[in-house]
């Protein structure tokens, strides 16, 4: 035994490990950012849900197992260690669901969560607008009260998964003339509703991982408002904390990548190249630190603590770690690093394509979920107490 929380392998961890070993597809699924890949990932989510493994931390009545935070961490570690498919529903699972648990009505929970758990409904996020990125409070897309609900108009952009998703959630200005954080309402809407146009956007890696959403008097029933109209900013900030902190970036992701990096070093590294060796070690230490820190945070939360501005520490840390880790892998691969092959390709024996894909994805980390510059300002002002 060592000072390693991962060695506390319980029955639940063993069940997850066994199930994943038996079910994770041998050949990686096609990219989630293609129509074919999206469908394949949705099918995978249904398989997970059938084993009650898609939302283990949720209450049983919504498809979960009431798993503790520590069991959830164990699940995530096993999931990434097994190289299981990307969670196509992650925007809904890790952003919308926590918001609903905190602010939703029982009717909303009953209606929205079960199909989300089965991936019958896959959710996209709709935060940013063309003129509201880091400065989210500058958003202009509007919600106008009408009979039985609201009419949405405006443009949302950089909406992850929106190219193929079913529904979306975001903030809308519901009080004309209200400034900044005031008069905003948190709404869920159907991406197939009349008045919605989705324009997929090709990303750095060439695939359509996000999209622009044009809304032209799209009707949304009152039942799809989360919390009170006008209270959207406060509610959204509770989601933002989830996105930055524990939920979206579980440590298993980095521990698994670091383990693969060490394997790559053993296979392809030059033992005399201590500069590269040290970068591999630092990536491993970084992943270990993030994992230990998350376990400590989980223990603190389980004991009744709360998570606030300190989630910004984690967001900067994991996003920088992810970039460094993948850059190190590509440097290890040398001239093979630029190969954009599919995993398993015979001409790509080092699986360079997989590292490249991960690298391109890692580059988005310091930008999304609040840029790292915004996070550093949050740390300085709210945790260190420096003046605004």
């Amino acid at each position, binding site marked *: 035994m*060592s000072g390693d929380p991962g060695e506390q392998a319980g029955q639940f961890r063993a069940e997850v490990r066994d199930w994943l070993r038996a079910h994770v597809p041998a050949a990686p699924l096609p990219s989630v950012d293609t129509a074919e890949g999206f469908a394949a990932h949705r099918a995978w989510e249904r398989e997970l849900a059938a084993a009650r493994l898609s939302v283990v931390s949720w209450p049983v009545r919504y498809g979960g197992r009431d798993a503790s935070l520590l069991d959830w961490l164990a699940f995530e570690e096993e999931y990434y260690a097994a190289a299981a498919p990307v969670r196509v529903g992650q925007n809904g699972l890790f952003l919308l669901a926590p918001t609903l648990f905190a602010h939703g009505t029982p009717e909303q929970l009953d209606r929205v969560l079960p199909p989300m758990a089965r991936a019958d409904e896959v959710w996209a996020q709709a935060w940013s607008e063309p003129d509201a990125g880091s400065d989210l409070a500058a958003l202009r897309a509007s919600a106008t009260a009408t009979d039985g609900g609201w009419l949405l108009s405006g443009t949302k952009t950089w909406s992850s998964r929106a190219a193929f998703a079913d529904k979306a959630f975001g903030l809308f200005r519901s009080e004309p003339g209200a400034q900044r954080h005031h008069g905003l309402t948190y709404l869920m809407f159907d991406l197939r509703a009349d008045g919605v146009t989705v324009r997929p956007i090709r990303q750095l890696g060439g695939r359509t991982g996000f999209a622009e959403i044009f809304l032209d008097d799209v009707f949304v029933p009152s039942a799809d408002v989360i919390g009170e109209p006008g209270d959207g900013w406060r509610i959204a900030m509770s989601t933002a904390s989830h996105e930055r902190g524990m939920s979206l970036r579980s440590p298993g992701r980095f521990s698994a990548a670091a383990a693969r990096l060490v394997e790559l070093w053993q296979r392809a590294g030059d033992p005399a190249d201590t500069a590269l060796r040290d970068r591999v*070690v630092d990536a491993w230490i970084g992943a*270990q630190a993030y994992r230990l*820190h998350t376990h*400590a945070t989980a223990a603190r939360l389980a004991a009744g603590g709360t998570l606030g501005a*300190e989630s910004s520490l984690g967001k900067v840390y994991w996003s920088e770690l992810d970039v460094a880790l993948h850059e190190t892998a590509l440097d290890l691969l040398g001239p093979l690093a630029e190969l954009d092959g599919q995993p398993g390709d015979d001409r790509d024996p080092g699986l360079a394509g997989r590292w490249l894909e991960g690298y391109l994805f890692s580059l988005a980390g310091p930008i999304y979920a609040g840029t790292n510059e915004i996070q550093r300002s949050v740390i300085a002002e709210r945790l260190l107490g420096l003046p605004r």
Partner: protein
Amino acid sequence: MTLARSAEQAQFAGSLHDMLGAADGPAAARAWAAGDRVPGLAAWRALATLGVTALAVPEHAGGLGASFTDVVVACEEIGQHALPGPVAESVAAVPVLLAALSGAAQPGGVAPGEAPPGEGMPARWLSGLASGELIATMAAPPWLPFAADADAAGLVLLAGGNTVRLATPGARHRSVDRTRSLFETTGGQAVAGGPVAADAVARALDAGALASSAQLLGAGRALLEASVRHARQRAQFGRPIGSFQAVKHHLADVAIGLEFAGPLLYAAAVTLDDGGRHAARDVSAAKVASTDAARRAARVALQVHGAIGYTEEHDLHLWLAKVRALAGAWGGQAEHRARVMAAITTPERGPEPTRPEAAGEPAWN
């Protein structure tokens, strides 16, 4: 298992914090550097009163037989207050070394070694360490080429690969940290030898590396606090310099580094408590991360303070120098990174990862 301070440890840290604050660590450090050990030794006696010097000493030898996590808590506070003296040596490494040699249980309940107590000396030294009457230091080339503060220590040991000897201090060297006097040593009477000694030395080096990591983390926290205080007070262009984004972001990066080094220290302490499997990996990871975090804190602290930080008039230099000194002591970054790599590329069920090798001495017989 805990990866953070328990309520009791938080209380312990609070008591230490108050005591060290009252003892005025920086003033004691300045006096120590000038050759006046009176305030520093008074602070060491106060540490003994709070049980710090007894933490790593087994209960039957008059100590507390405490967890390594308690040692980490104490050494963080000591580092934060810039207390002078052979801290990692006397509070952690030497007690662990002597406990292993005297066949005593390690902190955390590890099975005793098989060494015969060398004429009962280790046990007597242990009780002296626990009570605070004895301050000890050691050299263990190559990680620890000199015995720090040997002139202030009542016991000086020289640890080689397979031997532990009493040592006579020789030539004295100045350190960048003016509170540290570094002594060359000549080995004298043997205290122990053979595989038991080799194992004890390896344990001692891990304990010392962990304790010095905790001092580094504490020093890093002190540097961050001083920088935040300065940035809030110092005004330029009509505003506190802490309101400028360039300054904020530097300090945020310091806070991030310190925050994520902490859990590695506690994990390494738990590893040592539980018998040391993965000791090389976890202790070295903690040393690497706390050194990097403390060095970033030092570099940013100096930059934020500007010219006043580049003086001996300001206390900042006490921590800047200590960070530089401890970054290389107890194994440098290269050695520790190599040790982590060796450990993580060794098959799970294979041989134990290599322990730090001390060189230069023939086998004792």
